[in-house]
């Protein structure tokens, strides 16, 4: 389980992005963070993966304080992070990236499995270079596959995985998320506005203006999330510091 306690974070210029955010991401459950653009969702994901360090507050993984750990150590401890904007490399192939994530040589069948989950045909892609020759959607899917291939993952964070993915591939991805959650008992944290992802979630947190505005079980949050009343109320709703 991943636990965030009273996390605050500001930009170098001092602008507050997150303030006093507390969340629990339980094992074997899918938590979706949603909310308006610019609310601090991606910043929260980066803080979890160690790309940024909080100004205050602590982060715990299975009870261990990992706040001061760097990205490498967090990754080795089981935290995976799929970037919202995929990174391109001149020279590194899809196979390279997936094998780096898995920390071993992968059989073609394994590569096929990871790429199949994001709707890509392995034979066409394993030797492709992860560079500008890939479309935005292809790069995004490979980015997600690199996290699915991660060795000994405990907590997987996906930042808007639906972006650039077609409906058919998206169905495969939904299946992969459910399998990770149910069969492999991973903690999943997905930043998304996509209704189908919200529908398969266990918990939903709405983050706006750097605060957790709403937090609860899907059955409680989802019915009202997109209602007119909620859409207006959410960003200005009552703060909560309760964990899930």
């Amino acid at each position, binding site marked *: 389980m991943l636990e965030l306690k009273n996390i605050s974070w500001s930009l170098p210029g001092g602008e507050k992005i997150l303030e006093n955010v507390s969340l629990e991401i339980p094992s074997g459950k899918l938590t979706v963070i949603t909310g308006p653009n610019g609310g601090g969702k991606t910043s929260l994901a980066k803080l979890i993966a160690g790309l940024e360090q909080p100004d205050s507050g602590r982060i715990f993984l299975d009870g261990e304080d990992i706040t001061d750990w760097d990205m490498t150590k967090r990754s080795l401890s089981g935290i995976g992070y799929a970037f919202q904007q995929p990174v391109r490399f*001149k020279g590194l192939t899809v196979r*390279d990236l997936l094998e780096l994530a898995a920390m071993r040589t992968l059989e073609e069948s394994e590569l096929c499995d990871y790429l199949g989950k994001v709707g890509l045909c392995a034979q066409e892609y394993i030797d492709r270079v992860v560079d500008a020759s890939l479309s935005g959607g292809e790069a995004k899917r490979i980015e997600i596959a690199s996290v699915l291939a*991660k060795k000994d993952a405990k907590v997987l964070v996906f930042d808007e995985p639906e972006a650039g993915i077609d409906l058919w591939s998206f169905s495969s991805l939904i299946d992969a998320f459910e399998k990770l959650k149910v069969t492999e008992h991973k903690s999943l944290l997905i930043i998304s506005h996509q209704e189908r992802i919200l529908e398969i979630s266990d918990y939903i947190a709405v983050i706006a203006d750097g605060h957790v505005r709403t937090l609860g079980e899907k059955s409680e949050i989802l019915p009202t999330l997109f209602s007119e009343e909620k859409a207006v109320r959410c960003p200005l709703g009552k703060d909560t510091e309760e964990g899930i």
Partner: protein
Amino acid sequence: MDKTTEELLGIVSDWSGKFQGAYNIRENGACAGRQSSANIQIDSKTDAPGLVIHIKPGTMGETVYIPACVTHGDIDDLVYNDFYVGEGADVIIVAGCGVHTDDGHDARHNGIHRFILGKGARVLYKEKHIGTGSGTGMKRIDPVTDVIMDEDSYLEMDTIQISGVDSSIRKTSAKLGKGAKLVVKERLLTDGTETASTDFDVVLEGDDSGVDIVSRSVARGNSYQEYHSKISGNCRCTGHSECDAILADNGRVNAAPELFAGNLDASLIHEAAIGKIAGEQIVKLQTLGLTEQQAEEKIIEGFLRG
């Protein structure tokens, strides 16, 4: 054959105790082994040190190896190798050079290669350079390549300088006839106080000829590299020159691609990009569990391989 030669051969020409087919091994300025094949004849030049290699028209799928090694200091090896590739032949030429010195004397190899490709001939030319040894003497490799390409011929040059060469000056010139295609993939890694200069001069003389030069380099430590390419299009032709360099530490690179279009239908492009490794690339690999240093190594490895 010297043990150092065997080690160098393993690195630069995939030597595993023997070569299949035609070959000539040059060791410290002398011939350490030679074999011709039914289709590839290797002879010594009569007017200068070096070889004349005749590849018969229509030769298909054969490989000829002509590696050169310098295994100790105080050797300045100069060699002239001429390759005549017959019409319609399709072959691989593996060159490669290793220089080694364990003392204070310089070790240098200067290979001047001339390729004359007949009509429709296809050649993959592979050349790997490395410097080894703990001596303070300079390890130098200064290759010169001159290419004349007849109608519809194709030459792919795959060159790589791995490490340890203190100074390298590479000059490549080519003249392309109608429909001829030249593809150059150059990869270069310098470190410490090494310097490397590479200079391409390609003249497109026949309609529908084309050249594609892609140079990828990494300059680390206090090393310095220069890249210059000139593509002259005097006909309906295409030309592309790309220099892509990564800087690390205090590495420096000077890139100067040059184009000349002497015909309305010449289509020429050059690109040059120099910069450090993008931070987001390192971060991505760190999120996969690599340290910053491991991430840099992996990115450079891929960059030079690709």
